[in-house]
C-alpha cells in the first residue's frame, strides 16, 4: 500500500510523541527488573573461571546448609538441551565448561545476598583444557573441538548444515554467476582482509527473568525479552511442555538490540523454581555477567578478492567470512547466513562466490545484535570499495555510483531489483552533498595539514539490510473497541524503545479515521492474550505489524459499516468514515458514531443488532524462499532498506585521537511513519555504531579470560562523545507492499558507521586501517608505523 497524496495524511508521517512517554519520564513504567511476586526467590549463578575446562566435580553441600537457600542445581541433574537453530547448549554446563563466564551451578534463595553467598560456597573442581580462541585456528584439522558431539545434535534442517567432528555449525555458501569468468574479465584484482572484535549490546536493563513452575505442568514467565512467542516455543521444545501450558509475559523492556531475542534465563529459572517447590524465581544478570555470561556480537575475519574493469565495473567478488561464534551457535549461525547473502554490499556483482564459516571457539557466544551481521561484513565491504576505487584511480563515490543496485539488476542471491526497491544512489547522493565531498585530498595537502598537528578527512559508506527471518514469518493484530468507541491495539510485538507501538497506533488512527489519543496500545505482551507474532527482531515490526494493523483496521471498518448499512438502510458502498463517524456519502447529516456500533447497535425501541466489533489483521511474509544450500540462490529478503553515511573527522596526529565533526546519514525509508521517532532511532543507532567504530571491543587474555567485563574498561559512548553535528535524511521511494510504503529502519543506522570513519581516516592520514575499533592507540601506531597500510 503506498500513499497517493501525502498531504492527506493526518497521523502517519507526523512527529507524534511516543505512547509510553508519560510512564517512562515518571519512572512508573514497570520492568521485569522492578517486579516482585509473592513468595519469590532470587537466583545467582556460579560461573566457570576457565575458557575451556572439564568439570570434574561439583560439591554443593556447604551451600545447601545455608539458611534461606531453597534450591541448588548443577548441570548433572538437567537433561535438557536448548538451541535456536543448532540445539547445542545445556541449561548449565555439564562435563565441559566452554567459555569463561558460563554458568555451571545455580542457587535460589530467599534473598539475592543469600544466593550469592551460597554460590561462593559451591566447590567446583575443574581440569583446565587448552581453549581455542581464534576462529581461524579453530578451523585447522588438529584444533581442539568445542563440541565433540556436534554430529549428534539436532538442528533446523534445510537451512543449516553442521559439520560433525569440526568446529563448524554452519557454512553459508553463495554462488552467483561464474566467478572464474568474472576474474578473467577483470583488468584489476584487489585483495583485502579485515577484522571486527566481539562486542556487547549493553542494554541498560540487563537480562532478567522471573519464572514459576505451576502445578499441572504449567509455567508462568515474566521476562525482559524481545520475543515472547519464541521464548515460549523454545521453552516448550526444551522441556516437552505443551505450548498452551506456558504463559510468557513481557512488560516494559529496558533495551534489547537483539540481545534479548531468543531464549536466555527462562529455562534456568524454571528448573530452580521446580526444585524450590514451585516458588517463582528471579534471576537478573549483574552488569559483569551481562558482558561475560550473556551472549554478544560475534567477531569476524573477512577476506575479499575483487575484480574490476578499468572503467570501474565490478566483475567478480570472492569473499570468505570467518565468524567467531564463541561456544554456542545460538543466533550466530543465522547471522553468518545473513552476512553471506548480504555479503557483497548494495552492489551489482554479476559473479560472486562467498563462503561464510560460522566457527565455534571458547569465547562467550554470539547472538543477534542490531544489524545482524551487516555492520561486521560492511566494515570490510565498504572499506574494500574505497581501496579498490583508489587502486583504479577512481573517486570512491563515482565508483560506488557505477556499481550500486538499480532497477533491473540482480542481487547475489538472484533477486531482481524492482520499482518497489529503494534507491541506494539517492542515499549516497544525499550524504556526499551534505559533507561536500569533492574527492580525496592529495598527499601534499595532507603533509601540509599534518604540520598543524590536526588533519581532517571525509568519507562515505553505504549499507543495506533486509530482515533475516524464516520464509513463513507471520504476525497478527487485534483491535478491540471499548464502550466509548476508543480502541485497544493488541500485539505481541515488543516495544523496547523503537516506538513501534506509537507507529502502529498512528496507522490504526489513520485508517480508522479517529484521533490517535483514542488508540491505546497496552504494554505487556502476553502469549495467552495477545495474538501471535514471531519475534521482535530484524526491523520487520513496523512493516509486518503495520500491514497487519491496516488489515485489522479495515476489518473493523467493514464490520462497522455492515451494521451502519442496516441501520441507515443503505448499501455498505454508500458509507464513508470520518472523525469516528460513519456517514451516508450523499447525505453527511445522516451518520452514526462508532461508539453507537462497536458494542452492538441499539434501536430506539430497544432491539439491538451486531455486537462487539473486533478487528483482526494478519500478515505473512510474501514470496520468501529458503536458500539453495549449495548456491545460496533464493529470495531471503522481505524489504531491503538502503542507506549511506558521510563523515568528516579530525585526527590529532600526535595522539591518534579522532574527533567527529559531522555525521550525516540517509536512509530510503519508503515512507516515514513518524518523523521524530525515525530521527531518534537513527541518531541512537549512529551513536551505537560510533561506539563500535571507536571504543568497543572484548579483550581476552591468552588463556581466554575476559579482561574488560565492566563499564570501567568496556566503554560505550557518553554525551561527551557526540559528533559536533549530525543530520538525517529520510528518503521516500515507497515500498509497494509496505504499510503506506514504509520500510524498516531500526537496525540500519548503526551499520557502516565504522566503515565511514575508516574511510574518512584514510582521507585524513593516507593510511588504511583494517581492524576495529579505531582507538586512538591503534590510529597512533598506524601513524607511527609510517606505513600506508596498518594491519594491527
Amino acid at each position, binding site marked *: 500500500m503506498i500513499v497517493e497524496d501525502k498531504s492527506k495524511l493526518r497521523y502517519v508521517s507526523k512527529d507524534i510523541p511516543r505512547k509510553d512517554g508519560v510512564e517512562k519520564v515518571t519512572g512508573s513504567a514497570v520492568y521485569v527488573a522492578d517486579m516482585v511476586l509473592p513468595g519469590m526467590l532470587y537466583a545467582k549463578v556460579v560461573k566457570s573461571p576457565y575458557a575451556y575446562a572439564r568439570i570434574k566435580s561439583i560439591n554443593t553441600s556447604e551451600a545447601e546448609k545455608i539458611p534461606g537457600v531453597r534450591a541448588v542445581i548443577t548441570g548433572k541433574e538437567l537433561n535438557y538441551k536448548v538451541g535456536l537453530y543448532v540445539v547445542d547448549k545445556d541449561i548449565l554446563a555439564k562435563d565441559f565448561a566452554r567459555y569463561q563466564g558460563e554458568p555451571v551451578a545455580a542457587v535460589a534463595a530467599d534473598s*539475592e545476598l543469600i544466593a550469592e553467598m551460597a554460590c561462593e560456597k559451591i566447590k567446583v573442581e575443574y581440569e583446565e583444557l587448552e581453549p581455542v580462541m581464534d576462529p581461524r585456528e579453530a578451523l585447522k584439522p588438529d584444533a581442539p573441538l568445542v563440541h565433540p558431539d556436534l554430529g549428534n545434535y539436532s538442528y533446523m534442517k534445510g537451512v543449516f548444515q553442521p559439520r560433525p567432528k569440526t568446529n563448524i555449525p554452519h557454512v553459508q555458501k553463495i554462488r552467483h554467476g561464474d566467478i572464474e569468468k568474472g576474474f578473467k574479465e577483470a583488468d584489476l584484482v584487489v585483495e583485502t582482509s579485515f577484522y571486527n572484535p566481539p562486542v556487547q549490546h549493553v542494554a541498560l536493563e540487563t537480562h532478567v527473568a522471573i519464572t514459576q513452575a505451576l502445578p499441572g505442568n504449567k509455567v508462568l514467565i515474566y521476562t525482559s525479552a524481545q520475543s515472547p512467542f519464541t521464548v515460549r516455543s523454545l521453552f516448550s521444545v526444551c522441556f516437552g511442555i505443551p505450548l498452551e501450558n506456558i504463559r510468557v509475559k513481557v512488560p516494559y523492556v529496558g533495551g534489547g538490540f537483539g540481545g534479548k531475542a531468543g531464549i536466555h534465563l527462562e529455562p534456568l529459572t524454571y528448573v530452580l523454581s521446580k526444585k524450590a517447590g514451585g516458588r517463582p524465581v528471579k534471576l537478573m544478570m549483574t552488569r559483569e555477567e551481562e558482558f561475560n555470561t550473556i551472549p554478544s556480537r560475534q567477531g569476524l575475519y573477512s577476506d575479499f578478492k575483487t575484480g574490476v574493469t578499468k572503467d570501474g565495473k565490478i566483475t567478480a567478488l570472492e569473499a570468505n567470512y570467518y565468524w567467531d561464534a564463541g561456544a554456542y551457535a545460538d543466533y550466530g549461525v543465522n547471522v553468518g547466513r545473513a552476512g553471506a547473502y548480504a555479503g557483497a554490499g548494495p552492489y551489482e556483482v554479476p559473479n560472486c562466490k562467498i563462503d561464510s564459516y560460522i566457527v565455534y571457539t571458547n569465547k562467550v557466544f554470539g547472538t543477534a545484535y542490531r544489524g545482524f551481521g551487516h555492520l561486521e561484513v560492511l566494515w570490510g565491504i565498504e572499506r574494500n570499495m574505497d581501496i579498490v576505487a583508489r587502486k583504479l584511480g577512481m573517486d570512491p563515490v563515482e565508483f560506488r555510483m557505477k556499481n550500486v543496485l538499480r532497477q533491473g539488476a540482480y542481487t547475489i542471491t538472484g533477486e531482481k531489483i524492482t520499482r518497489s526497491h529503494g534507491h541506494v544512489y539517492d542515499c549516497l547522493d544525499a550524504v556526499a552533498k551534505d559533507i561536500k565531498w569533492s574527492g580525496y585530498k592529495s598527499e601534499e595537502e595532507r603533509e601540509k595539514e599534518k604540520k598543524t598537528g590536526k588533519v581532517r578527512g571525509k568519507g562515505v559508506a553505504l549499507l543495506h539490510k533486509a530482515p533475516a527471518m524464516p520464509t513463513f514469518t507471520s504476525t497478527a493484530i487485534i483491535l478491540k473497541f471499548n464502550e466509548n468507541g476508543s480502541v485497544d491495539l493488541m500485539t505481541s510485538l515488543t516495544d523496547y524503545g523503537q516506538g513501534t507501538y506509537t507507529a502502529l497506533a498512528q496507522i490504526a488512527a489513520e485508517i480508522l479515521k479517529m484521533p490517535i489519543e483514542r488508540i491505546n496500545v497496552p504494554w505487556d505482551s502476553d502469549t495467552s492474550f495477545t495474538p501471535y507474532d514471531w519475534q521482535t527482531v530484524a526491523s520487520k515490526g513496523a512493516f509486518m505489524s503495520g500491514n497487519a494493523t491496516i488489515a485489522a483496521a479495515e476489518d473493523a471498518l467493514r464490520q462497522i459499516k455492515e451494521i451502519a448499512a442496516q441501520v441507515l438502510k443503505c448499501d455498505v458502498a454508500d458509507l464513508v468514515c470520518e472523525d469516528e463517524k460513519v456517514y451516508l456519502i450523499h447525505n453527511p447529516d445522516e451518520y452514526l458514531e462508532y461508539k453507537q456500533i462497536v458494542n452492538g447497535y441499539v434501536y430506539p425501541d430497544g432491539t439491538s443488532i451486531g455486537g462487539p466489533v473486533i478487528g483482526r489483521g494478519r500478515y505473512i511474509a510474501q514470496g520468501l524462499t529458503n536458500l539453495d544450500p549449495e548456491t545460496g540462490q533464493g529470495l531471503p529478503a522481505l524489504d531491503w532498506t538502503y542507506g549511506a553515511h558521510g563523515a568528516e573527522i579530525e585526527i590529532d596526529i600526535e*595522539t591518534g585521537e579522532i574527533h567527529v565533526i559531522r555525521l550525516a546519514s540517509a536512509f530510503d525509508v519508503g515512507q516515514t511513519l513518524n518523523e521524530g521517532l525515525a530521527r531518534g532511532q537513527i541518531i541512537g543507532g549512529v551513536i551505537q555504531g560510533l561506539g563500535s567504530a571507536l*571504543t568497543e571491543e572484548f579483550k581476552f587474555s591468552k588463556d581466554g579470560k575476559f579482561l574488560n567485563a565492566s563499564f570501567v574498561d568496556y*566503554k560505550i*559512548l*557518553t554525551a561527551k562523545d557526540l559528533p559536533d553535528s549530525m543530520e538525517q535524511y529520510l528518503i521516500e521511494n515507497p515500498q509497494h507492499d509496505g504499510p503506506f510504503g514504509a520500510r524498516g529502519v531500526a537496525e540500519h543506522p548503526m551499520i557502516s558507521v565504522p566503515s565511514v570513519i575508516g574511510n574518512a581516516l584514510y582521507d585524513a592520514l593516507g593510511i588504511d586501517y583494517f581492524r576495529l575499533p579505531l582507538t586512538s592507540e591503534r590510529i597512533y*601506531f598506524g601513524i607511527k608505523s609510517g606505513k600506508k597500510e596498518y594491519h594491527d
Partner: protein
Amino acid sequence: MIKPVAYFKPGSLKEAVEALQTENAWPLAGGTDLLVNMRNGVEHPDLLVDIKGLEELNVFEVDGKIIIGGNINLNFIIDDARLRKVCPVLGQSALTVATYQLRNRATLVGNICNASPAADMAPALYVMEAEVVVSGPQGERHVPINEFITGVKKTSLKKGEVVLRVEIPNPKVGKTAFLKKQRYRGHDLATVNVAGIANPDTGTLRVCIGACAVTPVLLKGTDELYKSIKDVDELADKVSELALQSISPIDDVRSSAEYRRDMTAVYVKRLVRTICS
C-alpha cells in the same frame, strides 16, 4: 553484592580512631572506591567507620596554606572560586575524575588513599608539594605526599590511622596545568596524566606523571633544565626525555606500555609548553 558489615558513625575523632583500631575496620568517606571494591568482593571490611561526621575533616582553607579536609568532595574543589584562583590545577584535575554524580561523593583524600597509580589528583599534589596530615593512636603526623603513596594501592597509613586533611604549605606561585590522556571523552581512568608548575622567578619547574609506574613519578632535575634552556620547545623535548627515563609503564587492558610511553612524551611536551611559555 555488598556483604554484611558493621557500620559506625563516630561523633569525635577519638571515637573514630578507637573504632579504626578494631579488627578489619575501614574508614568510609565518599565510598566511591571502597563500596565498589566491597561489591566486587575485592575488599571485605568487618566494620565501616563513617568519618563524614567528623568536624576535623570538614576544614577548607585557602589563605596562606591550602587546607583540604578529608570530607571535601571533588565538586567542591572544582566550584570554589578562591581555590580556583590560588591553585587552579586542583580543580582542573578534579574535573577529569569520574562523573558529576560521583564527584559529589568522591573526596580528594579518598582519591589519594585509594593510591591507584592513575589517581588523577595525585600529580597535582606532588608538584604542589602537598602533605598528608594523619591522625592515629600516636597523635598527628605530617607525611609528604610522595611518602604517603608507597605503591600500587599502598599507602603509609598504619592501622587505626585516618587522614584528616591535605595541606599545601606553600602554594607556589607559577603557571600550572594538568593534562590527561584517556580512551575517550567520557569518564575514564587515565592512560597517562601529567601535572606541572613552572615559576620563572624562582627557576622552579616541577612535573609529575601518573599511571606510568607503581606510584606517580615526580621528575628530578627539571629545575636545572628549566634554568639552562631558554627555548621552550627544546625544554619540552629535554623534559620529555627525562620523563621517559623516569617512568616504567606496563601493558594493561587500557593501554600498551609503548603507547603510555609515547603519550607521556607528547603530554609532557604539551604540559611544558603550556606552563613555560
